[in-house]
Every structure is written in structure tokens, then in C-alpha cells.
């Protein structure tokens, strides 16, 4: 029965639905990118190719400020979250079960499990208390909020890398009287860097794309690119939003592909 062209893997209609799925997944994004190059002000009627919306977004002061703010926050948040995540990953791999381990894992993974809106509201409440008490309303609130929800994204690739590592080199170094710090710097770190870089990039993208938590934590005049866009969606939308979206999409897609390549690098 298996010969004569009968494919046991086939299920009627599945391939059609799957291919439709891929088309539907990419069609809206592709249209969004195409209309960012529209010469007219419509996002549905094509009037020829132009860079005008990229130029107008580039010249828009609010967009400039929001871009700079988004980048500052993303750089700080990915730097902080990756540094602390590397330390935490070192502390939680290759050790026997320790007291409080599940509590530690629960805390690290909390940002992945708690709905974003709940975290956002909790931060709004807590930071409002601090803002009243100290009078400080700067970017620090956004940076620490972003650092916190980026930690699991930075932690997971580093931990995966540490777990997949060959222990014999570290043992050999320790046998040759290298101090734990020397072992880390000379043996562990050079093998760990693809994991660290992958974690940092993931954290960067996650921070750059955040809407909900930023929307609730930001003080007046602290729009990032996504919250600026969210505010604009209430007004008449021009392809300028498409142009900004296209740039953000470009960054994300590049990062994801680089991340995939990095996590494939063998020890």
C-alpha cells in the first residue's frame, strides 16, 4: 500500500491550510513595507515610489527624540540585563539542587508568566509612590523596568550555552591551579560569548519593541518609538508610520536571524 505513490504523511487539505497560513502571516507585513514607499498619503492606493515618508519621519522632531530615547533605553536595558543574567546563569548551572532554587527560577521567569498589563500596572503603582517620595521623574524608571523584563530573555540563551559546554577544559585548568576567576576569564568566557551576544541581542529587541509596560511607566514627554506610534494610531494615519515600522521591522528581523546563526555556533 505504501508504494504506488501513496504518501502516509499526507493529510487532506493540510498543505493548503499551511501555505495559506504562511501567506497570511507575511502578506500584511509586506503590504505595510510596500506602502511605506508610497508617493501619496494613502495606505491603500498606490501612487508611485518615493522616499518622502522616510524623509518626513527623519525630519520629525518627535520621532527623532523618541528614537534616541528608545535606543538609550534598549542599550542600557540589554547591557544591564545581560550582565546580571550571565552572573545568575553561572550561579544556577552545574550546581546541585540548592535551597530556594525554585523560588529563584520563579523570580527569573516571572516576566514571562505574568501578563504584561499586570506588570505594567504594578510598576505604575510602585513608581508613582517613588516619584512622589523623591520627585525624580527621569529615564531611570524605564531603564530598570526594561532591564527586569529582559532578564529571562538574556538568561535563557546563556544558560543553554553553559549547559552544553564541555567541562573537561575547566577541570583541567583547575587541576593546573588556575583560580576560579582565571578559569572563568580564560576558559569559560571565550566559549560563552555566542550565548552572551545572543542574549544581549534578544534583550535589545525585546526592549526596543515594548509597548505596554513603557506606556504605563513613562512620565510625560517620555515617548519611545512604539508608544509614539500607539498615540499616532488614534489620529489620521499616514505612511510615515509605515516608514518607522519598516525600519523597526528591519532591525528586529536582522537581530532574529543573527540570533539564530549565533545559537547554532558549536563549541
Amino acid at each position: 500500500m505504501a508504494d504506488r505513490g501513496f504518501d502516509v504523511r499526507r493529510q487532506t487539505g493540510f498543505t493548503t491550510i499551511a501555505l495559506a497560513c504562511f501567506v497570511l502571516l507575511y502578506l500584511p507585513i509586506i503590504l505595510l513595507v510596500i506602502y511605506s514607499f508610497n508617493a501619496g498619503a494613502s495606505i491603500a492606493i498606490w501612487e508611485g515610489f518615493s522616499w518622502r515618508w522616510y524623509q518626513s519621519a527623519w525630519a520629525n522632531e518627535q520621532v527623532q527624540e523618541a528614537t534616541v530615547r528608545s535606543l538609550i533605553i534598549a542599550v542600557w536595558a540589554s547591557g544591564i540585563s545581560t550582565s546580571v543574567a550571565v552572573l545568575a546563569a553561572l550561579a544556577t548551572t552545574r550546581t546541585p539542587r540548592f535551597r530556594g532554587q525554585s523560588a529563584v527560577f520563579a523570580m527569573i521567569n516571572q516576566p514571562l508568566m505574568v501578563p504584561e498589563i499586570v506588570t505594567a500596572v504594578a510598576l505604575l503603582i510602585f513608581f508613582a509612590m517613588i516619584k512622589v517620595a523623591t520627585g525624580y521623574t527621569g529615564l531611570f524608571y524605564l531603564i530598570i523596568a526594561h532591564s527586569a523584563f529582559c532578564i529571562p530573555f538574556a538568561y535563557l540563551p546563556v544558560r543553554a550555552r553553559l549547559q552544553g559546554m564541555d567541562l573537561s577544559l575547566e577541570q583541567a585548568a583547575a587541576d593546573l591551579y588556575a583560580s576560579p576567576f582565571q578559569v572563568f576569564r580564560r576558559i569559560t568566557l571565550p566559549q560563552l560569548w555566542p550565548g552572551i551576544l545572543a542574549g544581549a541581542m534578544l534583550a535589545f529587541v525585546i526592549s526596543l519593541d515594548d509597548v505596554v509596560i513603557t506606556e504605563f511607566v513613562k512620565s510625560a514627554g517620555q515617548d519611545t518609538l512604539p508608544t509614539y506610534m500607539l498615540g499616532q494610531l488614534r489620529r489620521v494615519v499616514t505612511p510615515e508610520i509605515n516608514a518607522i515600522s519598516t525600519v523597526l521591522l528591519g532591525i528586529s528581523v536582522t537581530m532574529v536571524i543573527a540570533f539564530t546563526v549565533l545559537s547554532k555556533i558549536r563549541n
Partner: protein
Amino acid sequence: MADLSDTAARRASRVRWMLLAPALTILLLAASGPLLITLVYSFLTPGAYGGVEWQLSFDAWFNVIMQRDIFDETLGWSDAHLSIFWRSVKLSLLTTVACVFFGFPTAYFIATRPKKQRDLWMLLIIIPFWTNLLIRTFAVVELIRNEGTVNSVLIALGIIDEPIQMLFTEFSIVLGMVYVYLPLMVLPLYASMERLDFSLIEAGYDLYATRLQVLRRIILPLVKPGLIAGSILVFVPSLGAYVTPRVMGGGNQLMIGNLIELQFGQGRNWPLGAALSITLLAVVMIALLAYVRAAGNEEVRHG
């Protein structure tokens, strides 16, 4: 000797907690700590201009599902809240069902490709997942708005005279959520299907089973853990969705996330917002516990 290993263990433990301290401090400050404060806030009295008065009150929890009539002080169900809860659950379930309908064949399709192609197909699923949720939602808005692509094309073809109102309806919210959460269904389903033993299916056909019987009696039971995991992974963020119903629902079709936001804006009832948040969190935690159990079964099954 026992002494020596004891000091070594203590030292290792100290080093471990020192390494963990920075991460835990940040998480305590900007994740776990604020949640506890939210719990406290749900038992306080709302301030006149937002914020709270430090006075114990159970009104917020009472108001989650009940209300007192303004005129005769009689108790009743809070119809407004209950209808929003119902909409949230209904739309999240619809989203989950639609994700199964589209995600199951897609995961199966990928799992039955030659081994070398599979990673590439999966990358196509993962890329949208890691791109901005707001932008993806906005992309769907552009497609279905009255002067958007779908309506323009249909009018140009003469199929319809007036645009179909798709945006700002419950349909558009479900469409948006399916679009953004579909990868969460495909990922665990694919993980189950990749390990499918096709000799079992072959055996089924040898015993004269039809394709539908093979699907129902062999494939479905084998990938059930992945199906459960995917369903919960889609249902949980749908239930707590905020951006999609805000952009797609246009302020009329509120879901729990939007109801919570309202309490911190126009509603000026922070304790109620806090109580609603904790309620949502509790429901999500129950769903996630079910997920952990399903994932646990999966591991046992595949040894």
C-alpha cells in the same frame, strides 16, 4: 574532613548568592516587589484624584463582580464588568480554536518536510513572532480598515459597493490576536509532531484506516500534549491582551486589559484596577499550572 567539605559547601553557597544578588535585586525592584504592592493596593480606598487613601477597604474586591445601585443601594451583579469578562473569555477561546485550526496543519506540514528544510520553515514562523506586536497589529489594521486593502480591492472588483465594516468589531480583535499569537501554537505543536513515529501511521493504513481515522486515532493522541501546551500558550496572552483590543476594538470592545487601564485613567479607581489585575493574574497562573502539568506529561511520554 567533614569540616573541610562543610566550609567548601558554605563558600560555594555564598558565591552562588553573590552571583544571583544583582539579578534578584532588579527583579525584586521592578517585578516581584511591585506585584506585592499591587496586592496591598487592592485593599485600600481610592483617592479622589487617582492614587489611594491608606484606609482598609474591601470595596475594590466587591466591585470586581458586584455593584451597589446608586439610587436604592441594592446589591446586584456588575453587568458592565461581567460582560467584559465574558467577552475576554469568549474572544480568547475563539482565538485559541482558530489558532488550532490554522496552526495544526501548519505544524504538521513543517514536521513532514525533509529534515533540512524544517529549520527554514520554522524560522519563517519565528520571525514574525520576534517582531513588534504593535506593528503586526497595525499591519492587519491597514488591511481591513474601511479604506484599507481588502475593501479597496473588493470595491475595485465591483464585488461590493460600500466598504464592509471589519475594524472595531469583535471579529477584528480575534483576527488580530490569531495573527500575533499563532506562532505560540505552532511552536509546541511542531515540537510534538517532529517526534511522530510514522511507522505507526503506516501500520494504521495497513489495517485499512482512512486518513481521518489515522488523524483522529493515531496522530491526535500522540500530539495531545503539544496541542494542550499550544492552546494554553495562546489562551493566556489573549486573555491579558491590551494592545490588540485597544487598536482593533476602537474603545468600544473592551477586554480585561483595557478595563484595568481604565481604572488608572478616567476611572480613577486604583484599588479596583489592582484587584482586577490580581484576578487576571490568578486566572493566568491556574492556566499556567495546567501547562506545566501538560509539559510534564510530555516529558514522561517521550522519556
